[in-house]
């Protein structure tokens, strides 16, 4: 039996409902992936080109001219290892933020747990990441970087990036239903965020006493974690930093879910 009645204020997350609709998550993810690669001719090429071009520009300007240190590894692979998870995060955050508005038709016609929409759009961003990863493997061979046992941390670090994107995405997608100009603000926030994340520079540039504070940005943990897992750099990362980043990411996710659920009842009215 389903009881329909007005809810007030903060409401439960209804994770059980989410589980019941798990197939829909799969289908929507699959739709987003399929449509993305059908629509753009560049498709796969684009997924490679974007992080690669960023790496080239970073290497020329930050690596060569500005001579930013790179924790003892060649600057190109140093920046690419960071660009890849950063792009994953930025792309996932972008689609998640727009997801509620771009699926407004579904939201106003059919009931399903709304959290599925940002969730599916975040999942669909993973494909680009794996395509870009092939380049990284090529670069590791080129620079003769031997993977260590630390590589096993990668799946967890990818998960951390996705959790962060999803958490922020819950906030921003719900806000965007209410305030459409959030759509213009998000790219700007993502841009600033990148420079607050050690993508083009190492965390080791930051005084040791500030590092834990710096790790409050969950993407710091992700990016430095990636370098540690793949390149074996140890100057810039500590277990404490990863822990701080993870805790913040989880806090953002949980708060985002609650905020999203609170706003959810108004979605169909406003969209």
């Amino acid at each position: 039996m389903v009881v329909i009645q007005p809810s007030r204020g903060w409401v439960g997350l209804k994770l059980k409902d989410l589980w019941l609709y798990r197939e829909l998550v799969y289908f929507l993810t699959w739709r987003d992936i399929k449509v993305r690669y059908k629509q753009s001719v560049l498709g796969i090429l684009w997924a490679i080109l974007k992080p690669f071009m960023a790496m080239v520009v970073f290497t020329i300007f930050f690596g060569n001219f500005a001579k930013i240190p790179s924790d003892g590894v060649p600057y190109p692979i140093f920046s690419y290892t960071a660009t890849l998870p950063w792009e994953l995060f930025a792309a996932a955050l972008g689609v998640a933020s727009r997801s509620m508005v771009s699926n407004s038709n579904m939201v106003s016609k059919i009931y399903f747990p709304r959290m599925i929409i940002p969730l599916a759009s975040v999942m669909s961003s993973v494909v680009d990441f794996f395509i870009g990863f092939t380049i990284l493997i090529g670069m590791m061979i080129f620079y003769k970087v031997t993977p260590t046992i630390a590589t096993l941390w990668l799946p967890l670090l990818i998960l951390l990036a996705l959790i962060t994107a999803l958490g922020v995405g819950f906030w921003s997608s719900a806000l965007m239903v209410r305030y459409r100009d959030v759509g213009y603000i998000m790219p700007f926030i993502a841009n600033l965020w990148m420079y607050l994340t050690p993508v083009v520079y190492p965390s080791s540039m930051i005084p040791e006493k500030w590092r834990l504070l710096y790790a409050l940005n969950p993407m710091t943990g992700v990016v430095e974690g990636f370098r540690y897992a793949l390149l074996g750099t140890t100057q810039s990362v500590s277990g404490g930093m990863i822990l701080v980043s993870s805790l913040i990411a989880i806090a953002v996710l949980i708060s985002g879910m609650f905020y999203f659920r609170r706003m959810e009842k108004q979605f169909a009215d406003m969209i």
Partner: protein
Amino acid sequence: MSNLAVRVEDIGKQYNIFQETARYITLREKIVETLKTPVKTLLNPTGSEKFWALRHVDFTLDHGQVLGVIGKNGAGKSTLLKILSRVVEPTEGLAEIHGRVGSLLEVGTGFHPELTGRENIFLNGAILGMKKSEIERKFDEIVAFSEIEKFIDTPVKRYSSGMYMRLAFAVSAHLEPEILVVDEVLAVGDAEFQRKCLGKMSDVASEGRTVIFVSHNMSAIQRLTQECIILDKGAMVLRARTPEAVDYYLTNDFSASGERRYTEEESSSAAYPFKPIAVRVKNPSGQVTDSLFSVDPLTIEVEYQLDADITGLRIGIYMMTSRGEFIFTSFDTDEPEKFQSMSMRKAGHYISRCVIPADTFNEGRFVIGINASSYMVKRYFSDERAMNFSINTTGAPGMHWVEIRHGPIRPRLDWRIEEIA
């Protein structure tokens, strides 16, 4: 176990007026507004007027019942369906639903033009709440019903609108919930398609499924439902057996003026470039009235504006009894020569007028519906109950016998009486 399927108790839904006009605001506006008028914002956080789209609606429905919901545009029908299908949350009240609900507020929700028919079947099925295994099981049936076998692996953006609708409806029609909530899905597509949808709907109804069905189409309501509720301005006016409810609906709450004027809101943008202005009935002396004599001819006028040229436009009237039975349908370009000469109707302000000869109607109330369409192209506008009028049979044939004459028409026939040998 009780046989109760749906219980609705004092359900109400309130909207802010501003949500109707500008439904979202920008964060920048919000910040500026909050800074400018902190006191006002604190006192009245939404800063807008409210209205009730639906209020104090109560009803129960047993398993296996088919309930019709009728009412004018804006009466709250869609709001009720959206609440029952959990798309929007009520502002007050309670509804209990015993069983799995499937809602069809439109067909083809979530269809993506870039995906093929096959892919869209799975996607749409999942959105409607079907399991993958369930879709796989019904896949062949869905394809057969939609009659698009050959194009199943073609992206739906290449489909004709008819094919698209057929596929979309086919998926929806194979949803098998215990309780089905249906909005005017039948209002789209060509006549053939509508017939097919209606057929499928009556199958569903006769299978003993619980259905809540909203429609403007009185003949569909009569075919499919046993009981109806009538909504007006958000309130429930009547719950009765279908014939009684349809009769009540068609004869009540009309302006008794002999004229029906359309407001800007009623002529929806979907009707563009057709804009209805008025429908009126006149007696032989040219007076607009809703009460006429059967022995006089009567004139029906449809006034409208075209904001752009329309090719093949035809303006039609439906004549119905107060019970919603059709008496006849007629279009202003029924004459082939007229259709040829009016093949393109230029933008402008028009009246289409016809005269119904004397001695046509029997005593009672009659309903006029209007329709503006281009055959097989588009139905711009349709209002099946534009207005009604009553007929007085003083002086009609057979009035010297005080008895009820059955049937909606009362023609004066040229009887000859011959004596044979």
